[in-house]
């Protein structure tokens, strides 16, 4: 069977779709469903790279000594590539994030394998392969999220809590030991957003300890303020393109927060539990070792999107491992009204939105059939299945075969951010 698509990202004109599946990136031309770009992360994750280098060096040395000492061509023991112990947690070549620059000339992906940000030049005129890798910048710790500022700033947040600034260009990468963070939380970061307000630049960061921090930029040593409102981890930060003074945040809570982030003001909490409850399953219960008598099914936010349709401001929310998309309308007074629970046949892994027409793309978790579905967001803010077979065409372009579901990468990992107290 085919491995499902994971990350999805459409360009603003809706002409191309960028996707990830396991350790591969693909670019689809949405006029005909053809694959016009591809890249694979071929870094070998069975052996940490430093150990690989050391082993090669010691084998070389051994060969050298032997040559001097004697003339018999005795076979030299070759260092064995260590095999993971049976039962050890498998590691995956995740491509953890995908972002396009504002001018959409660059695509940035982050790889778990070598903890790098991979920067591609996107040349849509090149139908052989529109992706050309121009820099692979390795970071000290696994990048979790990136945000691309204007002026080619690439802001990278890592799992250790640090944020680095590097540049989108074809300059050689900096030695990761020479990199210093521009700011840091003592907590795993989950999302980062570069934004502008009142002519000034800011960086917003969300972490596992419920924090959303607003920091000045480039003087990232000056914190502006924290936004307090979440009781569980923050996983997703979204700034609507139609109003950059707003922030919508979500994570492990039963609600989203709508903020005027610059003014440190919580405008609304958008309650989700009653709406999503019918779509939560046993898979949303905590793992057995964390189960308590009062445990409930847990909500985690995978994606927050917004779209302006005829002056109607629509909010779309994807909760992790559910087969629906929730839509809301944000009114002028910032009250939020539930519009629709758009139900799909199978769980949705990721969604993205194409700005121009409001078309929504969804990567679907299923073993046969279309792995991408397309929906239209109508002027009434309602989603409906789009009448197109593009989803089938894109599925045909997926050649990532696996034996069974057991070989899928873990598709839903946001809930692992939830803190569990020992008991």
């Amino acid at each position, binding site marked *: 069977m085919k491995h499902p698509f994971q990350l999805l990202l459409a360009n603003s004109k809706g002409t191309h779709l960028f996707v990830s599946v396991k350790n591969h990136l693909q670019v689809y031309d949405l006029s005909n469903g053809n694959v016009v770009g591809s890249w694979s992360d071929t870094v070998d994750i069975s052996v940490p790279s430093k150990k690989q280098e050391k082993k090669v060096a010691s084998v070389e040395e051994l060969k050298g000594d032997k040559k001097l000492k004697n003339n018999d061509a005795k076979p030299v023991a070759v260092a064995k590539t260590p095999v993971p112990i049976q039962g050890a947690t498998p590691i995956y070549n995740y491509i953890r994030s995908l972002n396009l620059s504002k001018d959409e000339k660059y695509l940035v992906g982050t790889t778990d394998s070598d903890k790098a940000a991979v920067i591609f030049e996107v040349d849509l005129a090149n139908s052989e392969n529109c992706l050309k890798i121009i820099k692979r910048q390795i970071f000290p710790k696994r990048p979790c999220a990136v945000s691309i500022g204007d002026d080619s700033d690439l802001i990278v947040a890592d799992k250790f809590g640090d944020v680095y600034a590097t540049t989108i260009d074809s300059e050689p990468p900096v030695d990761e030991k020479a990199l210093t963070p521009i700011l*840091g*939380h*003592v*907590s795993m970061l989950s999302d980062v957003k570069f934004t502008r307000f009142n002519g000034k630049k800011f960086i917003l960061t969300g972490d596992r300890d419920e924090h959303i921090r607003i920091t000045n930029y480039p003087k990232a040593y000056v914190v502006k303020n924290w936004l307090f409102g979440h009781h569980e981890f923050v996983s997703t930060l979204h700034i609507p393109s139609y109003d950059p003074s707003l922030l919508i945040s979500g994570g492990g809570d039963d609600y989203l927060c709508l903020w005027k982030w610059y003014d440190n003001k919580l405008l609304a909490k958008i309650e989700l539990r009653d709406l999503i409850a019918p779509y939560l399953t046993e898979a949303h219960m905590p793992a057995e070792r964390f189960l308590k008598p009062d445990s409930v099914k847990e909500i985690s936010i995978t994606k927050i999107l917004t779209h302006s349709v005829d002056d109607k401001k629509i909010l779309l929310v994807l909760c992790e491992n559910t087969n629906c998309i929730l839509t809301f309308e944000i009114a002028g007074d910032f009250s939020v009204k539930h519009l629709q629970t758009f139900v799909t046949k199978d769980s949705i892994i990721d969604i993205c939105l194409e700005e121009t027409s409001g078309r929504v793309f969804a990567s679907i978790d299923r073993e046969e059939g279309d792995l991408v579905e397309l929906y239209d967001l109508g002027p009434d803010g309602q989603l409906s299945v789009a009448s197109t077979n593009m989803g089938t065409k894109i599925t045909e372009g997926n050649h990532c075969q696996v034996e069974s579901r057991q070989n899928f990468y873990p598709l839903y990992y946001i809930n692992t951010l939830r803190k569990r107290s020992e008991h």
Partner: protein
Amino acid sequence: RAHSNPFSDHRLEYPRSPEDMKWEKLYPQYHDKDSDSMLSKVEIADIGCGYGGLLTKLAPEYPSTLILGMEIRVQVTQYVEDRIIALREKHKDDEVNFQNISVLRGNAMKFLPNFFQKGQLSKMFFCFPDPHFKQRKHKARIITNTLLSEYAYVLREGGVVYTITDVEDLHIWMAKHLEEHPMFERLDKAWEEQDKCVSIMYNATEEGQKVTRNKGSKWIACFRRLPTPEDCD
């Protein structure tokens, strides 16, 4: 157990935000019941207060200011709580009644902004911090470039960071990071000599007294929190 891992101890309690913190539980005599508000705010924080020696010596010096010790170790925090309860009981009719000092178990590396508003503190003490000698543990040190930005946030302009240690390597590390951070400026020896907190810090803590008994050296470095740059919010 002596150590608590500041990165992953999830049993800690902390308020949702500074506005949610119930300071009346720690400083009952400074709570005005009629208006349900505090008559004073915490302005002095002892980060890693250990057995509370510094708190007890600072109490009489700042009678109208609230002083808070933060400690991550459970048993040590309990000791200090009991110590303060005993002092308050013993001195309840005295001028210095120790009602303005308190302690809580907290992780200052993660949750200072949950407790303190922007610019709330006028002094922060870091006395004999854990050196975390190994290179790979340096990120666990209480003074790092990234943490200093958070300390600069809770400290007001002109506020002072006090550091003291008997580990020269740690002193060099802390001084270097504070010197490099654009929001802090080193205070010189002349300043140290006229500041009463410096002399209190030198002798007040149990760790400090142990160093004196063992004829060890103590290194001090103090820094002023500089004004926020004009172009920053």
